[in-house]
């Protein structure tokens, strides 16, 4: 049974593996990008992000597992990539040709009326004035923008962008992120690989974190935030009794009382804290301060990519994908 291209998600990876001899670059990756997502594919350098993207674009063959883009197999032919565009690593062009000539070449290889969109996409990435210059004279940032222009020529429904802000100056990074948000607002699904959490946090709604070739988290950013317990600092009018109330309260753990300040420190999920406030009030204990100390997303990222996984992982529904007939 094949997956219907109409109903299929923009990207579905199931049990994806890529081995280079003894090295496992991508290790049983499951990932789903849904329509409208701006999906962050996050991981440190060498984690397997680019290798995954290459398999999504049909540039390399998986050792095992399935890749589907809009239900099609990119290895079966370019028809599967009809609605897909993007680049892996930095976008590359013919340095001896002008930017416009490069786009004309790519438009010719796309067919249809892609060539009529050249002026429009150059305008979008703000390269109209330099379109006649050879790409060999372009800065890194200009080539990145030209890469976006080349992708937009195809009028894609899915953009695959591999670390699009790498090597850009702060202004270039700001412009690139704004451009990605604008494209997402126009209805293009974006899969964006990055090793910068701040970037993913700024532009993405869902995220997968990859570490040593394996996905260690997939879900919404809010799920990621909720996936760890929070430490709270509590100051009350009666620390001694407050400790007892805390210890008796369900969901409150690791209660310690500081000396001589009387500050109580405990860990709890978000849902347990309101009940604790009520319990303290009913016991006649005044709350001077109740301060959550959430780990930042960056802390969580390092927790996932360098240390252990978060204590709680969101339950992710990963439907089985049947190989296309």
């Amino acid at each position: 049974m094949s997956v219907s291209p109409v109903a299929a998600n923009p990207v579905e990876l199931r049990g994806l593996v890529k081995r280079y001899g003894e090295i496992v670059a991508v290790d049983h990756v499951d990932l789903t990008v849904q329509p409208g997502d701006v999906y962050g594919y996050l991981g440190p350098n060498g984690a397997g992000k680019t290798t995954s993207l290459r398999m999504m674009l049909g540039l390399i063959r998986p050792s095992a597992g399935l890749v589907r883009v809009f239900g099609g197999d990119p290895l079966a032919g370019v028809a599967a990539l009809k609605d897909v565009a993007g680049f892996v690593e930095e976008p590359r062009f013919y340095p001896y040709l002008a930017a416009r000539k490069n786009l004309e070449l790519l438009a010719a290889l796309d067919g249809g009326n892609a060539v009529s969109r050249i002026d429009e996409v150059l305008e979008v990435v703000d390269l109209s004035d330099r379109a006649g210059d050879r790409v060999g004279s372009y800065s890194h940032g200009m080539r990145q923008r030209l890469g976006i222009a080349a992708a937009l020529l195809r009028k894609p429904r899915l953009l695959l962008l591999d670390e699009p802000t790498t090597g850009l100056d702060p202004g270039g990074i700001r412009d690139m992120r704004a451009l990605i948000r604008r494209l997402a607002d126009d209805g293009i699904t974006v899969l964006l690989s990055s090793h910068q959490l701040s970037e993913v946090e700024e532009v993405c709604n869902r995220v997968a974190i990859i570490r040593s070739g394996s996905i260690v988290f997939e879900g919404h950013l809010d799920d990621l935030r909720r996936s760890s317990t929070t430490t709270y600092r509590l100051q009350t009018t009666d620390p001694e009794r407050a400790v007892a109330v805390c210890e008796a309260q369900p969901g409150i753990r690791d209660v310690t009382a500081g000396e001589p300040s009387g500050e109580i420190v405990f860990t709890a999920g978000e849902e347990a804290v309101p009940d604790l406030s009520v319990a303290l009030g009913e016991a006649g204990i005044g709350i001077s301060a109740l301060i959550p100390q959430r780990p930042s997303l960056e802390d969580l990222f390092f927790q996932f990519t360098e240390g252990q996984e978060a204590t709680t992982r969101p339950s992710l529904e990963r439907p089985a994908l049947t190989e296309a007939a």
Partner: protein
Amino acid sequence: MKPGVPTVYRWELRKLRSQKRTYIGLGAAVVIPLIFVTAVAFQSGGPEDVAFGRYIHDTGLAIPLVLLFFGSLWMFPLITALVAGDIVAAEDHNGTLKTILTRSVERGQIFTGKALATATYAAAAIFLSGTVAVVAGSIVSGFDPLVTLSGKTVSALSALGLVGASMLVYLMPIFAVACIGLLLSTITRNSAAAVVGTLMVSLVLQLIAIVPGLGWLHPYLLSTQFDAWQGLLRNPIDWAPTIRSAWVCLLYGAPTLAAAYILFVRRDVAG
């Protein structure tokens, strides 16, 4: 319109027209005949032990034929290898292979377009060189009748036709060299290695031809096929060398081209 091999072919030619390497090859195809003709103009002798060498002062139409002989040693294989060895490997080096492989043309169509562009360039180099040799040679030695290898004199116009036909026959081993270059270009992913490798294969086959005791192998060597055109300049025309050249060159060219095609279509594109 759906893009295909013609689209790729047109753009490969445009890319070739924009690269210095192309002009180095075509420049050599022009300059070397001019140097040869200049030398002929200032010397009374000639390469008498080479077919048509003794006639280079009698008619300019002998000069392209002598050039075909000398050109087979390294000039034409090198000119061919300059593009054949580069046309895939350069895309690897520039990282542009991934750029074009993620558009709307199949890998096989891209390879076919590249192979056709390589063949076009190689044919252009041979005919450009021949044209320069005929024109410059005729200026220096005259546009006069030619004595064939059978001793019969043919008119200048007939000789011109035979020179053109000789170049067509000469293209067969050139295309086989191009196929070897395309394979090395696809395997090595390195332009310099593929260009030098192609030339080395050509030179090694020539070296085998002078190894004592391997005379039985000569008819099947690629280097021997560069002389097949001489059969056209006999009376009557001896087609046997041309026919043998066709299938021997096919034996060299077809498997290497097929291997290059399969490798290109199936390979991982990383980097």
